[in-house]
């Protein structure tokens, strides 16, 4: 039974390897990758159900008992993210089928998407911090390829910077790991948590914690986001959507895991630091979103605002705030994917990325326009949609903890998000159309399908927040009481 946990990692890797040999049979690649992702989604849902009813489950590889071996741990938090990531990837694949083009499809596009999702799922599931590094690398190496895929001039230029930043970040991860191993002599996350709690979080361990904060901030785009706008605006739309949805979220997951489980003791330093960084991130992100003239700049800076907002939840650290952070994390994965798919489609339809040069899209494509409007409302946090629950809970947490500055920054950012996205809506969707109805390019059916699926998911997360709450409550329980996690690993 426990062996199921490894499936979200191993299925994509195995099929990815098989697809490498089917390079020229594009149809077969499409079918196999879709089936794979649907299977993974179903498996993660089943696992989520099991975890919710039976508690945390773990898989010790080769039977090495913790703390000695590498292990996978499935708790509700990890499984919720695995499930969301797998569903979003499935939908992005659907979009890719009709838009990405044959040239890229034969350049091993689908295998790398599968390797990417394997790395992402592995990072969510692993219970060993060195294994987290390895899963990060699996994910990053695929992302390096996907940034550069297509080989356009600007892509190569930006991808080189992206790769170098991440190589340096991974290097810092190793440095942090070395110091951590030197101090606590273990790599199992639960065991680290136990040992840190035993010795108290002395200054040396806090320094190590800050080093981890630095590493994961680089990956999550928390304050250290300078690399993000450039590299997220160059790859094909489906890849952009996956990056915006998943890559920064893995960093956020790692931050939440690290600072609720392993280093929760010295909150004066670490959580204050996270709070300050989150605040500055949001402000800088808002500036970027306001200043942006093209859809890519506005979109990427909105990703940064989202990151800052989720981490307010972690910085505040009350139960309500963490609950909000989880809801918002799930919402952000879905909504950012849809936002970038729509942006990609806008650029495809008009051949322009500057918002002033597009106009009247809603006349030619009414449904498309209204789906954009749904995303806009969801990202702002308007009630029936997905962003609302997360925002209200993070706000509630911030009030409970009396962090009024973070509260003000967080909610002011909602208005900026609304303004920046509304600017796209008014400039590009409303107004006189520049392309006549007869000359318009049709939106491919697959792309429409993916928009509708994601929009339905957004509505579901908003309206059906109650049905998610069982899982989220369980996830929060584990995050707020590290002993639940530690006991499941070391005493089970």
């Amino acid at each position, binding site marked *: 039974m426990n062996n199921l946990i490894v499936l979200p990692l191993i299925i994509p890797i195995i099929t990815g390897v098989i697809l490498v040999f089917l390079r020229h049979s594009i149809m077969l690649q499409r079918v196999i990758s879709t089936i794979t992702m649907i299977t993974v989604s179903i498996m993660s849902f089943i696992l989520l159900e099991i975890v919710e009813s039976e508690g945390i489950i773990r898989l010790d590889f080769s039977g090495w008992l913790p703390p000695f071996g590498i292990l996978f741990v499935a708790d509700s938090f990890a499984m919720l993210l695995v499930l969301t990531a797998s569903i979003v990837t499935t939908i992005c694949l659907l979009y890719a089928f009709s838009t990405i083009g044959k040239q890229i499809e034969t350049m091993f596009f689908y295998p790398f998407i599968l390797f990417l999702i394997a790395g992402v799922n592995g990072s969510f599931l692993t219970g060993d911090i060195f294994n987290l590094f390895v899963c990060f690398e699996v994910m990053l190496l695929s992302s390096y390829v996907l940034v550069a895929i297509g*080989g356009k*001039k*600007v892509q*190569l230029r930006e991808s080189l910077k992206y790769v170098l930043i991440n*190589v*340096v970040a991974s290097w810092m991860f190793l440095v942090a790991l070395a*110091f951590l191993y030197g101090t606590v*002599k273990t790599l199992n996350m639960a065991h680290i948590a136990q040992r840190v709690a035993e010795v108290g979080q002395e200054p040396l361990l806090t320094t190590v914690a800050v080093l981890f904060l630095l590493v994961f901030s680089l990956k999550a785009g928390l304050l250290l986001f300078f690399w993000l706008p450039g590299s997220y605006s160059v790859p094909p739309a489906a890849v952009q959507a996956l990056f915006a949805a998943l890559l920064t979220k893995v960093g956020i997951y790692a931050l939440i895991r690290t600072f609720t489980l392993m280093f929760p003791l010295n909150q004066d330093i670490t959580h204050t630091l996270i709070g300050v960084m989150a605040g500055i991130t949001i402000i800088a992100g808002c500036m970027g979103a306001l200043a942006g003239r093209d859809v890519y700049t506005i979109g990427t800076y909105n990703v940064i605002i989202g990151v800052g907002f989720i981490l307010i939840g972690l910085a505040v650290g009350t139960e309500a705030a963490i609950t909000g952070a989880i809801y918002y994390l799930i919402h952000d994965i879905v909504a950012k994917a849809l936002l970038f798919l729509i942006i990609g489609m806008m650029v495809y339809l008009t051949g322009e990325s500057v918002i002033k040069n597009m106009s009247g899209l809603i006349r030619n494509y009414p449904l498309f326009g209204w789906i954009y409007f749904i995303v806009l409302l969801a990202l702002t946090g308007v009630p029936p949609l997905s962003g609302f629950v997360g925002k209200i809970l993070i706000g509630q947490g911030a009030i409970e903890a009396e962090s009024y500055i973070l509260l003000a920054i967080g909610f002011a950012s909602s208005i900026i998000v609304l303004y920046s996205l509304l600017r796209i809506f008014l400039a590009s969707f409303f107004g006189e159309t520049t392309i006549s109805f007869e000359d318009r390019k049709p939106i491919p059916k697959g792309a429409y399908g993916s928009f509708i699926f994601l929009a339905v998911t957004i509505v579901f997360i908003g309206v059906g927040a109650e049905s998610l709450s069982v899982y989220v409550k369980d996830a929060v329980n584990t995050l707020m009481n590290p002993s639940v996690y530690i006991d499941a690993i070391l005493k089970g």
Partner: protein
Amino acid sequence: MESLIVILVGILVSVGTYLVLSRHMIRVIVGTAILSHAVHLLILAMGGLKKGVVPLLGQSEDGFTDALPQALILTAIVISFATTAFLLVLAYRTYKTNGTADFRELRGISDE
């Protein structure tokens, strides 16, 4: 012995940092390679250097040698090998397409 290794790590890191900060692509890539070697040595030093006993619990009276750092380093070497190889290919393609290996000329805004 540990102190010596740590000093060596320091030297390697400073060399690597210097190279990473330079403008030429190849120098930067060599810099990242040197940085990764430095961190491998750091992991080795952190695990404790040569003790002359077997890496098994309860096999000798003087405790045991920790074999885990070597496993970690092996993994890290493989990853850094793959990354460096990929970086070199990417740098070559970038040089071919953009016609320059100077990072200052690779600046530029994303909408071009």
